[in-house]
């Protein structure tokens, strides 16, 4: 009703001002515009969100909350058949990215198979974020090619990546803070529904909507946040918000899951729960790529590790191989950079 409230107030105040001001000032003129401007300043200063939220807060003292809406019987959702274990999901083929003279990624090659956890590590400024952007469709490589399930993805927007089965999370959490966790996670299932604007306006989409919300709730529960499904996303701790992002990615039923520092900000027990969840997803046949700083987390979870330094791959292999690799030891211990601090934007 914010729109109606605003229109009412402005119309009435304007009418009144046009009557009162000329009498008060003794001359006629469009003085109401000035007073109007001042009033507007006051309102925007005091009620930056508009008057409606204030009114709603006051009225919520004597109004009962809405009863839960009747839920329609859910319609079946589109499901994706996951690729067979071991199939190549994501390939980066000698991917190079230049920003002017700076080579952020130099012929980086790596791949992700269904049913494995592949970790991408490297010191600050190694080019991990740049690489992550290119394999998620945010940016295009200067040279080389990214293939998703065998399909070259150069020039395609990230929604095409999502459509082909890639789910991702963000290093800096991107949730709609004042919407519920359920709503945020349901956004991840966007492409699994197809009812349009007209159908939504006329409420013909209820069966599909019920299915999307049921799917979102299932993913939230699977990620262990069932108790928070109806809370605003911003009310959760940062670590939990990262898990909400994973649930949101899972709601899209991805074949490949890209996680950008999922363990940052998590407490020890939460990290264990996350590792368990990821192991379970791996067992279900998902391919998971993790960019992470927490070495303990990575070494215990990953099947394969790729190490980046100065934009190039310096080692690749199992956790044991990588830990024994002299170049990796040199990069992490010999260099001046701290491996465990938060990553700067590469």
């Amino acid at each position, binding site marked *: *009703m*914010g*729109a*109606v*409230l*605003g*229109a*009412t*107030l*402005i*119309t*009435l105040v304007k009418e009144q001002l046009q009557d009162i001001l000329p009498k008060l000032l003794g001359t006629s003129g469009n003085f109401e515009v000035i007073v109007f401007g001042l009033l*507007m300043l006051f309102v*925007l200063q005091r009620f930056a*969100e*508009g*008057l*409606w*939220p204030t009114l*709603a807060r006051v*009225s919520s003292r*004597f*109004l*009962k*909350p*809405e009863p839960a809406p009747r839920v329609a019987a859910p319609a079946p959702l589109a499901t994706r058949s996951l690729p067979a274990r071991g199939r190549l999901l994501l390939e980066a083929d000698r991917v190079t990215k230049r920003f002017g003279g700076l080579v952020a990624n130099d012929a980086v090659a790596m791949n992700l198979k269904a049913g494995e956890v592949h970790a991408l590590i490297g010191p600050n400024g190694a080019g991990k974020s740049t690489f992550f952007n290119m394999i*998620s*469709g*945010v940016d295009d490589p200067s040279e080389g090619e990214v293939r998703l399930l065998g399909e070259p993805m150069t020039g395609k927007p*990230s*929604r095409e*990546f*999502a*459509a082909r089965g890639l789910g*991702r999370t963000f290093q800096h959490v*991107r*949730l*709609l803070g004042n919407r519920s966790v*359920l*709503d945020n996670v*349901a*956004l*991840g*299932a*966007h*492409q699994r*529904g197809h*009812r*349009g*604007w007209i159908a*939504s*306006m*006329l409420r013909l*989409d209820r069966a*599909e*909507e019920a299915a*999307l919300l049921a799917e979102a709730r299932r993913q939230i529960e699977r990620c262990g946040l069932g108790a928070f499904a*109806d809370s605003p996303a911003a009310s959760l701790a940062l670590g939990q918000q990262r898990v909400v992002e994973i649930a*949101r990615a899972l709601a*899209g039923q991805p074949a490949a899951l890209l996680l950008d520092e999922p363990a940052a900000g998590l407490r020890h027990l939460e990290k264990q729960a996350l590792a368990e969840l990821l192991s379970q997803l791996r067992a279900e046949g998902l391919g998971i790529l993790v960019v992470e700083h927490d070495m303990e987390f990575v070494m215990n979870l990953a099947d394969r590790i790729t190490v980046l330094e100065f934009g190039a791959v310096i080692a690749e292999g199992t956790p044991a191989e990588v830990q024994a690799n002299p170049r990796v030891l040199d990069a992490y211990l010999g260099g001046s950079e701290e491996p465990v601090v938060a990553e700067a934007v590469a």
Partner: protein
Amino acid sequence: MTRRTLTLLCILALALCWPWLPDYTVTVFSYIALYSLVAAGLVMLTGIGGMTSFGQAAFVALGAYSTAWVCTSPVATSALAEVVAPALLPWLGLALGLLLTFVVAWALGAITLKLSGHYLPLCTIAWGLSLYYLFGNLDFLGGQTGITGLPALTVGGLSLASPRALGPLIWAVLLLALWALHNLLDSREGRAVRALKSGRVMAESMGVDTARYRTKVFVLAALLAALSGWLYAHLQRFVNPTPFNINIGIEYLFMAVVGGSGHLWALCWAPR
């Protein structure tokens, strides 16, 4: 009492006392509903979609001038006289207004919605101004003096000439529009629209075609403005460029912001 029942009670109270309200109040209430229709579109566009527009008054003008031209210009009336009854002309005007607005808004949106930051609001001021001057300078639209003698709407033989008769129709249109917008926000498509505000990268990664959704919200807001313009034209029975200038465009935005630009309707505020 829940929010929903309170809202329904308010509507019922307005409906019951409508016949006994003074003429002046009836007119003011009709205008409030007309403005609300535009402001509701702006709430969708600005508050929820994150795009600021100062130019909505131009779309109101498109709606108003379309019907004025269809109903009064000798060219249109003589061409249509054999095909449709005169009572149906305003409805043709509505169709033309919505169609024109759809085309213009889609074209403008496709060009300008790519702009970010301050450039988009500035651009809306620019086309808001240019459409205003266009209407003031086209001779077949009456120039600055405007078009007089618009017919009243008739619904099922009932003439809606006075604000007291037309007001209920305006309010019905407003309430229907609010209901539809509320439903839209409470759906998969609504979630995608809300996601626009938090930046393109996230929404795109969730599979939302952000450019397309931005254009669609923009067109939706423009269509609501055109609808308001059509009702306005048949309430005033007279159209000139003054009520569509950029001041009014700014005022529409104020309405949306003062009311609470993220809040269309009581029911959609309550977290699910």
